């Protein structure tokens, strides 16, 4: 989701989260308004963010806590170790430390909600899987809002074409993987030696959905 500046409606590049008395408030500002409000510049924010990845910094700053001592059952990494190295140990860490990871991703990217393709040929917009027509309709609405009527006319025609032509059905990549996954065949490295690999991400409670999409 692209946030607009709370003061002037320009695209926001500063994303601030305040937590007071347990209540979280978010503010989104453009650079000019952030300057006007004397918000620390992004460079400094980035430096702080990088600092938080610095092992020396993390060693001196981290306090033993329940958060820090939690360990991923698949790869054995703790949240403190992740923060020290700045690298996850396995995909499941995203679920095990979901709350902290979500906050971190919001700080890095200004959002923790995915938009883009799926491995099986689908499209996700703001975390929601959409079909093709819905996606083009969203683009049409955006074009109208921007008063880009040329683009809007093109998209309208595209929707008409989609509506009149028979549904194309799943794209070539939509079906289940024809190739064996690493654990499915004797000729692949995961088989027989799976003890070395992490458990399936869907084995845990906070499933990633990765297995479902394939």
């Amino acid at each position, binding site marked *: *989701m*692209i946030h607009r500046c709370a003061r002037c409606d320009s*695209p926001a590049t500063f994303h601030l989260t305040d937590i007071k008395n347990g209540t979280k408030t978010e503010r989104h500002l453009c*650079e000019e308004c952030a300057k006007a409000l004397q918000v620390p510049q*992004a460079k400094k924010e980035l430096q702080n963010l990088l600092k938080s990845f610095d092992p020396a910094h993390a060693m001196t700053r981290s306090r033993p806590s329940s958060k820090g001592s939690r360990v991923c059952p*698949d*790869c*054995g*990494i703790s949240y403190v170790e992740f923060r020290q*190295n*700045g*690298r*996850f*140990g*396995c*995909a499941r860490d*995203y679920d095990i430390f979901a709350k902290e*990871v979500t906050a971190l*991703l919001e700080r*890095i*990217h*200004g*959002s*923790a*909600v*995915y*938009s883009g*393709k*799926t*491995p*099986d*040929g689908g499209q*996700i*917009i703001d*975390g*929601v*899987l959409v079909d093709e027509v819905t996606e083009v309709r969203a683009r049409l609405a955006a074009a109208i809002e921007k008063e880009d009527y040329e683009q809007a006319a093109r998209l309208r025609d595209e929707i008409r074409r989609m509506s009149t032509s028979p549904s194309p059905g799943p794209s*070539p*990549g939509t079906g289940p*993987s*024809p*190739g064996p*996954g*690493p654990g499915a065949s004797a000729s*692949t*490295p*995961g088989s027989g*030696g799976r*003890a*070395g*690999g*992490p458990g*399936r*991400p869907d084995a845990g409670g906070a499933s*990633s*959905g*990765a*297995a479902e*999409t*394939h």
Partner: protein
Amino acid sequence: MPGADDQPSLFPEGPGSGGAIELPDLWLQQSGPESDVVVSSRMRLARNLDGFHFKPRFAEGECDRLEVHLKQVLRDVDPALHYHTLTQLSATARKVMFERHLISREHAADEHARGVGYTGDGRTSIMVNEEDHLRIQVFAPGLDLSSLDHRVNDLDDRIARRVTYSFDPRFGYRTSCPTNTGTGLRVSVMLHLPALSFRAEVRPGRGSEQDIVRMQNAAQQLGLTVRGLFGESSRAEGEFYQISNQVTLGRAPEKTIRDVQELVDLVVGWERRNRESHLNENKSRLEDHVWRAWAVLTHARRMTSSEALGHLSALRLGVSLKLIDTVDVASIQGLMVAMRPGHLQFEAETELSADQRDERRARLIRERLAHT
């Protein structure tokens, strides 16, 4: 330029027969859209396989198994790909691959099981077991983001039919580093901005710093970043800069590509206007700058990489402005790669000291420029 045909089996010092590499074509020697200002464009996708740890937490033998598995996957995806397990290559061979952008500096230096697959034209490479299990990258000379978008996604989709990527609808593609989570997409465009930089010398106070800061501010507004020639933490040598995206989550890839394109178009316009205004206001000074570079490049007997890059940058500007026609942009770009340490050692078929490299570099440049 050494190529797969004329030098099929070098690196006798490499362990076993795997020490030889087949060098792809040097695509930078071809010209592309907007090549007066834009050197090259690159897109890469970071991908990991479901069911395997990330690199920092590989179990014993897992890294090797994954490398063997992915090597087979890549062969199935495109039987024409060249593939090398990097532990079987000499340090020089790995350096050459780094200098051709086929692998990253870290990938060249690492010690664990890892590999690279690449096409004969050198425009596509896939790193195996770099920071992520797969780093799929495509290149083009000049500015050509739409074709790169098509190529990288086509390859990604073909791989996705043979493996199960680690993906979920909430965070997208899960990567080892949270800065790549989401699309895993990095779009980079390398620009040559001598006029924006040169302004500092002729107009103190209205110099490059101000222009570069303007560019960086514009980049920041769009969630993009400006870096030096060799990526992260490198400085802008020879007035070459890279513009790339930072945000990979919460923004659709199409938007990211559009943002990079818009900023690059803007910067290309600034650079061209500055070049024109230099030409109108300081023609003799500019000509002097370019021809002095030519004189040094065609006569010097020793030259460091850094000095050569500075002169080649001046020459590139001169060619673009038609102040000099003794060489073309593509040849200059070829030289910029061929003069680097790994390539000089590749050609010499032996390790070279810094002194020896400086001599060989000067000779290579003299010979190449004499024959253009």
